[in-house]
């Protein structure tokens, strides 16, 4: 299966990591550096095979810290660069992600999670300083192909690191998908790229988080730089970039909020419960940051209960409590659940178990019409 620079319209059966790799290449990714860790590893392997076919470079770095910093360097020099791992590897990358946010280096970072443990890591960040990270969570392989491409555009458009939060189901499930390149609006000029074109002019470009500039070309310094970056992220948050999926919410008196693969399980349960007369719907954030707060407020207006289902101890829960129309209506119905091997979702992620968690909170339904 050869990579092409424009993706492939033909539908093929691909495991998620393969589809994501092809989508990345179709989006122009030409540099990837990473270190193996399940369930991210095959994404690195696919990139190692695909990138040389399009004149790109893939490096099996010696650690996650090395990988993300290699990607930072490549991106600063103008390549569409990416890296990834699972949450434990992302933990090692936090400083570099903060640096990229604060020194405006675009990069796509893939977190192929083992469960859903990394919502806080993704949305609050574990680095330093006043920065935010655009983060998106697909529910399946088909959506991952779209979001991966969107993230490469967003990274460059906003000159920032951005995150794709997958999980082992997204990584390893096979779906019949096509990976055609998506189209985007024109990007701002790439006058920030360290391409050597200003060398010797006395005004060579710098990538410097402290932005002090040079004696003959002073920069804004840390105060100016960090204020500007903070304002940039505030503007991104207010810009309408947030996305969500609203499923059967029109007359819902119970709103279930879920993200990623588990949201697909919730949608299945919503269908079952609707058939039984319950007025229940699903609100699925697609951007975890910016969180679709205003849309959630609108969707939960008048709802008797807002049930948060995620496979962790309650992380997106915090954002739901902030934004739901009635904070007191919010209940957590998820929980930590990990397979005994430590690498996959545990027994909670199964439609009958998800159903139990939701049904516990439902009133007796009216007779079906």
């Amino acid at each position, binding site marked *: 299966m050869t990579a092409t620079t424009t993706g492939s319209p033909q*539908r093929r059966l691909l495991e998620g990591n393969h589809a994501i790799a092809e989508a990345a290449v179709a989006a122009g990714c030409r540099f990837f550096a990473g270190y193996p860790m399940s369930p991210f590893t095959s994404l690195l392997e696919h990139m190692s095979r695909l990138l040389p076919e399009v004149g790109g470079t893939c490096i099996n770095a010696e650690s996650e810290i090395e990988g993300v910093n290699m990607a930072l360097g490549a991106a600063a020099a103008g390549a569409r660069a990416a890296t990834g791992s699972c949450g434990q590897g992302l933990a090692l990358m936090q400083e570099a992600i903060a640096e990229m946010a604060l020194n405006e280096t675009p990069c796509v970072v893939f977190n192929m999670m083992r469960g859903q443990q990394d919502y806080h890591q993704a949305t609050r960040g574990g680095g330093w300083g006043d920065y935010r990270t655009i983060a998106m969570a697909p529910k399946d392989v088909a959506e991952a192909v779209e979001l991966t491409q969107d993230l490469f555009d967003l990274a460059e458009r906003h000159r920032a690191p951005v995150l794709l939060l997958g999980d082992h189901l997204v990584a390893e499930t096979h779906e019949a998908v096509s990976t055609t390149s998506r189209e985007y609006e024109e990007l701002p000029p790439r006058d920030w790229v360290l391409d050597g074109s200003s060398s010797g002019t006395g005004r060579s470009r710098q990538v410097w988080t402290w932005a002090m500039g040079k004696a003959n070309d002073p920069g804004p310094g840390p105060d100016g730089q960090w204020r500007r970056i903070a304002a940039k992220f505030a503007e991104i948050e207010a810009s309408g970039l947030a996305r969500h999926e609203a499923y059967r919410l029109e007359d819902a008196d119970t709103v279930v909020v879920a993200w990623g693969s588990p949201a697909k399980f919730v949608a299945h349960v919503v269908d079952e419960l609707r058939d039984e007369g319950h007025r229940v719907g699903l609100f699925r954030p697609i951007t975890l940051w910016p969180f679709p707060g205003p849309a959630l407020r609108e969707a939960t207006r008048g709802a008797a209960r807002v049930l948060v289902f995620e496979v962790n101890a309650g992380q997106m829960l915090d954002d739901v409590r902030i934004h739901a129309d009635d904070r007191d209506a919010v209940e957590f119905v998820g929980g930590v659940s990990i397979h005994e091997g430590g690498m996959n979702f545990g027994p909670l992620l199964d439609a009958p178990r998800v159903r139990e968690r939701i049904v516990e909170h439902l009133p007796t339904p009216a007779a079906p019409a």
Partner: protein
Amino acid sequence: MEQRRQAPDLDLVVVGIGGQGVQLMSKMLAQAATAEGRDVLMSSEIGGEMRGGPSLASVVIGRRARRALPILPSVGSLILMTTEYSADPLSRLRHGGWVLRNSTLVSDDDLPDGTTSLGVPVIDVARQLGSPQVAGLVMMSAYAAVTDVVSADSLVAAMEGLVPPYRRQHVESNARAIHHGHELGRQLTKEPVA
């Protein structure tokens, strides 16, 4: 791209013991269906790093594939290569569902009362064909014939695409196994189901 208008929608869980046989046979079906223009989802559950652990695969073909869950709450058909690890999949078999069992190892008595099943002695067949490793291919080809979900030619093409370079010497015997299994499946459907 071959389009078979009458090909059914279906979902299937394949149950066996690792190695890679269950995964290969399931992927062969999934690839064949994709090549025939169907919507497909396939997910796997492989337990343990050593051989002898569970190896399961779920395949959904047709309109339900896009919204199908990677862990199927219920399923319309099962392939049981052994009795091991079959209890949970059997508990998910929908009313009206059916089982294709490896009758070399799985008898009708091994299944819950009232389970509709067909048996193919795939390990015996594979031995007769000269290689026990093709049992899964025989089984999946029989399944494809019984359900008419994909053609034998599509299975052979899928198998050829899946066999790694260092196994090319098996392509021909694999293809024979597929055609043989497909014929066995066709024979099965000529007889009434118990």
